[in-house]
């Protein structure tokens, strides 16, 4: 299907390890926000990497706009799909602005020179991710939450059609959590396909067009928040640890809220 990011029956095991993704299929249309939820170890982050073309899957196929992700030249792939990791292996000694400029790698010319359009894109991305005022600070000096927003800014600088975001709000305060999801929602409305791995079921309910519930390497439910966030779907996967509710308005019926609760 054109204008979508799809994975079909994807299987993946780390070398010498157990199968982490076990027949996962998902389709994310451009212009929509899909949240992938599921317990720890369900295979969400690994699937996200596979969808981003970072892993060579053992079987199945990942396509973006009808083309196999792994067949795309690496810089073309970076202009098509941007990944926001949860963490970095190491924090380089660079300013926020230089770091975000790294997102422009796929757009640079053969001599790897950044042009004014690249610097302009960086400034726009810094503003959109609300880190413009941090641009001259060293990355290492930032808090975990600030760094997460800088990672989003770098992905925005890639100007890719699809954004794959791994737990973007895990270190953020409530205001910035809402801010990040509002930004991702807006990007989806502007035509981006956005996939967010998250443990925050309420943010997912509030913003996602679709929620995909992953368990033991495969999707066990994919649908609107109302279809997925209900006891008979969540309980078998997470255990019966939730209380469900909804606001008394029109949107409330479509987007329930969920509270973890000791039984």
């Amino acid at each position, binding site marked *: 299907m054109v204008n979508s990011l799809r994975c079909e029956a994807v299987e993946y095991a780390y*070398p010498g390890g157990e199968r982490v993704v076990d027949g996962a299929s998902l389709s994310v249309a451009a212009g929509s926000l899909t949240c992938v939820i599921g317990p720890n170890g369900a295979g969400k982050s690994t699937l996200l*990497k596979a969808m*981003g073309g*970072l892993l060579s899957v053992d079987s199945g196929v990942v396509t973006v706009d009808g083309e196999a992700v792994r067949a795309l030249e*690496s*810089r*073309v*792939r*970076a*202009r098509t799909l*941007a*990944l926001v*990791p949860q963490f*970095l*292996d*190491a*924090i*380089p*000694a*660079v300013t926020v602005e230089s770091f975000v400029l*790294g*997102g422009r*790698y*796929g757009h*640079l010319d053969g*001599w*790897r020179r950044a042009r004014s359009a690249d610097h302009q894109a960086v400034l726009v991305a810094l503003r959109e991710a609300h880190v413009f005022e941090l641009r001259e600070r060293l990355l290492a000096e930032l808090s975990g939450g600030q760094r997460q927003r800088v990672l989003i800014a*770098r992905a925005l600088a*890639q100007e890719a059609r699809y954004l794959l975001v791994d737990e973007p709000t895990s270190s953020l305060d409530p205001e910035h959590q809402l801010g990040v999801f509002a930004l991702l929602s807006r990007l989806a409305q502007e035509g981006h396909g956005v996939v967010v791995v998250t443990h925050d079921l309420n943010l997912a309910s509030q913003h996602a067009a679709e929620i995909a519930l992953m368990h033991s390497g495969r999707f066990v439910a994919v649908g609107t928040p109302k279809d997925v966030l209900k006891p008979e779907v969540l309980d078998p996967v997470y255990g019966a640890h939730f209380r469900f509710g909804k606001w008394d308005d029109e949107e409330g019926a479509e987007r329930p809220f969920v509270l973890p609760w000791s039984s």
Partner: protein
Amino acid sequence: MAARPLAIFLSLLLAGILIASLGVGSTDVIGLAEGIQGALAMLGLAEPLEQYQALAELRVIRILATVGVGAALALSGALLQGVFRNDLASPSIIGVSSGAGLGASLAILVIGGYGPRFMIENAVGMGPVVVTLAALIGAAACAWLVTTLATSGGRISVPMLLLVGIAVNAIAAGLLAAIQSYALRDYDVSQALFSWVFGRLEDRSSFQVGLLWTGLALTASVIPFVALELDLFATGEEDAQGLGVNTGRVKFLAILAASASAAIAVSVAGQISFIGLVVPHVLRRVTTASHRAILPLCLLAGPVFLAGTELLQRSLLGDAHLQPGVTMSLLGGPFFLFLLVRNRKELRAW
């Protein structure tokens, strides 16, 4: 210090060191003025020296060898440290130095009369060519062995690389010692073996210097294609891949260039350790950590370090000056220990 002023400073310093180096040599029958005149005469810019033009030319070749070796080893170290994201990586760790030593020693043994008759007949008279090429093959073989054994699932493991490097270096050192003890009673062969082990920048042939500079030019030509990419490697290989870096190609190019430049340097001048470790590290402390600055700066700072040390000790010690491999070990060894102690916390996790 910003990279550009540092480059200007290093260029001026190098020019000064090179000019001063024209005035010192194993004999003092020609001084600085004659040395400069002889060098200019080689470019057709002055009258050749009446008696000692050949002597001046030897000095120029020695200086060209010194500059090339310093640049090649520093570049090699910076590339390896970038690929492995580890300040402790250096050409000697991936087995290049000991591999080159083994290859060259075998060639010296053959030329010295210990090889099969047909090899001796063909090799004698082509000493520098055979020794250099044998060293190059030895270096490439060891680098290939170490990186292959340290690769698992398409990824190079740094701790594994260091451990395999230790093992391969130990095997090569053992074989080298065996060759040396085998040839011990033959004074000429022993002399050739030992002088090669300690590093030698004098009496290099124009073939060797030509090979060195050609190799350096080729390996330095990868800089524009790996520098920014190595900067993006700083946050992890997977992250760089996500930004569009073809990590496999960058690793291949950088390791190939690092192995080739170190192999050529060691095959021409013998074992000179630690330049590849020390120079990039000091540059990172003095200026930015960006490879777009560090890699080209190594081409200036490596020669400044090696030629500067050579000039200093030749001026101070005269005939009693030490071989460059010895000086670099005496300076580089303590520096390496300093690095280890300083990084003790990070290394504890290994």
